[in-house]
């Protein structure tokens, strides 16, 4: 079938002679003419040709600004993931040689970078800086001629459905590659990226996504829908979704608008507020502050726990997701105008604050009042450990709302909220079992036997309610305490300190629910705990219980029934006296504990919490040597559930990324060392690291010498007693 060539010819001439502004009309006219003359089939034919030519010419327009980048040296892999060593694509953004690329190609921190311009000229490049929010890098080459910088497509005019062509230059240095798609969405990744269905992969990361006019929509980069913390691996996150129909590009308009600052500051970091947010589904939960980090931007702006964020830079925010959309596009150092509401609904006052985002926060340190709560019947109302575990599975306390914490926490359980037990006339408040010597509570005159009825002006009926009040305070701040003594109320003020790092003496710890003198009756009876589909067996000793919750210690020691029996015999009396379950699992490999056991132990912990009535404030993992390393890794990972870790002669696992202490957690660390052990130096360095992250660390030395063979496996009685007292005091606050 012959088509009249005159229509495109006419169009071509017209386009050539008319000023650009008229071209649109002319094109429409051409289409109309074709439709009239030739019927639908020819229109389709003509349109197909127009499309192809238009898209090719769009790529041609930008191609001179798309460079190939070779990197040399650096790491081979990150977190066991191989890093591609091939070339990357970059986009020239200024005539004087600034080039933007995706951080993906630079994850390995190359020692040298060489940029090959489309004409074949090669120049070494300097990595000026990284953008940790948008996963880009800024390079600079020195070139004696002006380089072609492309025009940015105005974002305000970009519509979903517009053509989008992804351009790369990795296949060959001389020729740009192209993948054709459309703009799938705007304002993705909390307002940081455009989405396209063009194929985006390592073959074009760092290259431009162009519109049909050859204007640059954005710079192609892998992004993960739910990224983790700002670690090295983030750079690679999202790359596994290559060529999937979901690709991302960082708008060039946004890049150009920060370019001067980027050149100057070199690294653009995520902006942090330094607050904890109320847990719950972030799409439905109001942005209510539950904790304010000390010396954080929020603290400097005068924010307080209980405040609710209602607007950012004049835009109203009703949910935590909306808040994140407002914060995520900003960098550390950006100043935002944020409006808070403080107080009860009607009486709430509106507070306007100006807050400058920070790139780093100091780790959280828990404030300490200095009391040990009475355990057992009538002491206080506590949720079971199982429900605490459920809380623990909720999202992180939104410490960095600007970041990309997992937002899938849909748990509506808003912290343990025990029902008020007015009906059966239980006494109000929390009974004090003991007051920590030289603590704020002691200084304020509190005594064992008092009941705490209010903290910070709020009624408290349970430890979790008390902790909520304490978490809103920082060490050094004052807290109003109302106590009941002999039926009368007393108001006191305590100046809070940090959690103690000493083990209380036996005298300071009055026996809990059991009589200390009661002798253990014979051999402890061990029972078996099996998890379906898991080959391993765990043995446990469950002391006779009245109606108080029991503490739980998972002990990662040597394998075998005999070892378990003698360990249980060692601990029997302590378990009976303090109400402590001793759970002794076995490694899957007879050679000892290894990382492979992590999943088993996590499930064992869940099973134990479900089976026993466990006191959520005394869940401890202990281990020796490699078992201790595994205990560390288990405890830091599960630190929303686990309150203490006891490590005997164990440094941290070597490749472990230590998390910062956080409000919602109360993990304490006890290290037991054998004097002059080969690892002593390493262990002490690790303990300093742990303490620097905000955790309370206690180090004790066990008695050395005189222990041979079998006996060396077990702790001496004095050390054991210290560990027991430390565990017994873990519910301090």
């Amino acid at each position, binding site marked *: 079938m012959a088509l009249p060539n005159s229509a495109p010819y006419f169009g071509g001439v*017209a386009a050539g002679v008319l000023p*650009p502004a008229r071209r649109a009309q002319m094109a429409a006219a051409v289409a109309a003419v074709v439709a009239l003359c030739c019927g639908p089939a020819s229109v389709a034919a003509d349109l197909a*040709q127009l499309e*192809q030519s*238009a898209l090719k010419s769009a*790529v041609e327009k930008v191609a001179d600004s798309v460079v190939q980048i070779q990197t040399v040296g650096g790491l081979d892999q990150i977190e066991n993931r191989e890093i591609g060593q091939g070339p990357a694509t970059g986009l020239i953004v200024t005539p004087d040689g600034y080039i933007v690329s995706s951080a993906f190609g630079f994850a390995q921190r190359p020692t*040298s970078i060489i940029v090959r311009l489309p004409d074949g000229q090669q120049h070494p490049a300097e990595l000026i800086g990284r953008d940790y929010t948008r996963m880009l890098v800024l390079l600079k080459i020195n070139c004696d001629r002006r380089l072609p910088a492309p025009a940015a497509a105005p974002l305000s005019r970009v519509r979903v459905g517009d053509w989008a062509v992804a351009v790369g230059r990795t296949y060959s240095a001389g020729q*740009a590659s192209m993948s054709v798609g459309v703009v799938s969405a705007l304002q993705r990744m909390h307002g940081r990226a455009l989405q396209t269905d063009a194929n985006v992969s390592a*073959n074009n990361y760092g290259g431009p996504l162009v519109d049909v006019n050859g204007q640059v929509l954005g710079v192609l980069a892998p992004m993960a829908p739910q990224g983790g913390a700002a670690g090295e691996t983030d750079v690679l996150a999202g790359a596994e979704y290559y060529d999937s129909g979901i690709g991302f590009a960082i708008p060039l308009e946004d890049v150009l608008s920060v370019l001067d600052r980027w050149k100057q500051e070199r690294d653009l970091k995520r902006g942090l507020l330094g607050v904890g947010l109320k847990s719950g589904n972030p799409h439905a939960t109001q942005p209510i502050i539950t904790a304010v980090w000390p010396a954080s931007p929020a603290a400097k702006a005068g924010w307080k726990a209980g405040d609710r964020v209602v607007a950012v830079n004049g835009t109203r925010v009703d949910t935590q997701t909306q808040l994140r959309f407002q914060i995520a596009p900003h960098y550390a150092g950006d100043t935002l105008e944020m409006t808070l509401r403080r107080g009860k609904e009607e009486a709430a006052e509106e507070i306007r604050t100006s807050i400058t985002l920070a790139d780093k926060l100091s780790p959280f340190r828990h404030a300490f009042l200095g009391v040990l709560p009475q355990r057992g019947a009538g002491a206080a109302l506590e949720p079971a450990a199982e429900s605490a575990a459920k809380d623990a599975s909720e999202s992180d306390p939104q410490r960095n709302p600007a970041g990309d914490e997992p937002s899938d926490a849909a748990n509506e359980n808003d912290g343990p909220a025990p029902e008020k037990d007015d009906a059966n006339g239980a006494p109000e408040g929390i009974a004090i079992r003991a007051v920590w010597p030289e603590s704020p509570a002691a200084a304020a005159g509190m005594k064992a036997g008092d009941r705490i009825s209010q903290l910070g002006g709020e009624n408290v009926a349970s430890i979790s309610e008390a902790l909520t009040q304490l978490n809103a305070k920082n060490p050094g701040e004052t807290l109003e305490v109302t106590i009941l003594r002999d039926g009368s109320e007393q108001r006191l003020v305590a100046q809070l300190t940090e959690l103690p790092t000493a083990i209380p003496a036996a005298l300071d710890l009055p026996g809990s629910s059991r009589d200390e003198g009661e002798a253990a009756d014979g051999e402890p009876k061990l029972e078996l705990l099996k998890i379906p589909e898991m080959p391993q067996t765990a043995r446990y000793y469950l002391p006779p219980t009245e109606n108080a919750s029991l503490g739980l210690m998972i002990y990662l020691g040597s394998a075998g029934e005999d070892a378990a029996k003698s360990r249980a015999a060692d601990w029997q009396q302590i378990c009976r006296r303090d109400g402590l379950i001793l759970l002794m699992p076995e490694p899957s490999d007879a050679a000892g504990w290894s990382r492979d056991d992590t999943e088993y132990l996590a499930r064992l912990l869940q099973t134990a919490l479900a089976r026993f009535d466990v006191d959520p404030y005394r869940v401890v993992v202990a281990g020796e040597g490699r078992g201790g390393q595994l205990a560390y890794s288990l405890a830091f990972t599960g630190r929303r559930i686990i309150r203490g870790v006891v490590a005997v002669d164990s440094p941290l696992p070597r490749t472990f990324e230590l998390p910062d202490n956080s409000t919602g957690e109360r993990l304490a660390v006890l290290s037991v060392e054998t004097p002059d052990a080969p690892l002593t130096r390493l262990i002490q360095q690790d303990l300093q690291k742990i303490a620097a992250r905000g955790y309370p660390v206690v180090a004790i030395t066990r008695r050395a010498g005189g222990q041979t063979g079998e006996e060396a496996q077990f702790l001496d009685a004095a050390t054991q007693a210290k560990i027991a007292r430390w565990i017994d005091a873990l519910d301090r606050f």
Partner: protein
Amino acid sequence: MDRRLPLCRASLALAAAAALSGLTAARPLLAASLHDAIRDAQRKVVKIYGAGGLRGLEAYQTGLLISAEGHVLTVQSYVLDTDEVAVVLDDGRRFKAEILGVDPVRELAVLKLAVEDAALPFFDLPSSAVAQPGDRVLAVSNLFGIAAGDEPVSVLQGVVAAVAPLNAWRGAFQSAFHGDVYIVDAAANNPGAAGGALVNLHGELLGVLGKELRSQSTGAWLHYATPIDQILGAVEAMRSGRSLRTEPARDAAPAEPLALADVGVVLVPDVLPRTPPYIDAVLPKSRAQEAGLRPDDLIVFVDGEPTASCSAVTAAVGRREKFDAVRISVLREGRLIEETLDPPAAAAADAHAEHSVEGNPPLDGSADESAPPRPSPDVNE
């Protein structure tokens, strides 16, 4: 035909007008109806069933009719490793196939069907077309074995993303073929698609869809087709019943590999898995010194190949013959400097002269003997 069409006709027309001036002479993209072109191509594509079916190895692939008498071009693979290769045509007719020849480098095979009427539709290889990046293309194959019996094979649309050699980027692909291929912006190379057709919108054959390939460095799957002009000769040979015995060029180790010592470069001690390849010393009167290389230069490319470590430099240099020229790119004080170390003719002549002076005939002799693999008139005086 294109799901995207209705979405953005307006914005497209805008830019299309600007682009028009360059294509006034081009013929219309769709000479006949696109549907006719597709149907025509489908009739020339066959389904091949053979060995496999275990452990995720599909027992099927695709092939192209290349003669009216029933010659079929397909990829060489385990599917053909059986006496019972069955080929099913578009119309459902089923034939036993005989393997005429194979090409281990291009990984192709030509089969012959036992047809009697010699009236099959076929792709005329010599009159196949070529395409440029951005050209719209169709991939026609039995990917995933979805078509069966007399069902036509599946058609996918996309564009040519690039024309580039398979081994030119991201290091090592497991491909023996080094020529240019069409990189296709479509999910064209899935299981069973190998041996299918890449055609333009006129239904003209552009290339043969390749086997599945995955980048070893990025783990990304590739979609590509080998252009017909790269394989014409090989297909003719296979048709005439010859199996090509060419070994992959890459595996041909140099008869006498070049060593860094030959060019006078001493690298820093290779103490780490990836010691950056800094030059420690340049031997006096060596090719490296003549070319102007200096201690503390960082070698970044050898003949354009990135060299991240001392061992990479040694390996890259060792892939050259002793008498090859080698181009070395170094970073020096923030500048990229590229030097070609001359072919050894001059160096060998120098060596000859010097050795003569020092009276060292044995070395002289060995230098002459090393010449024959690539004789140079200067050496073979």
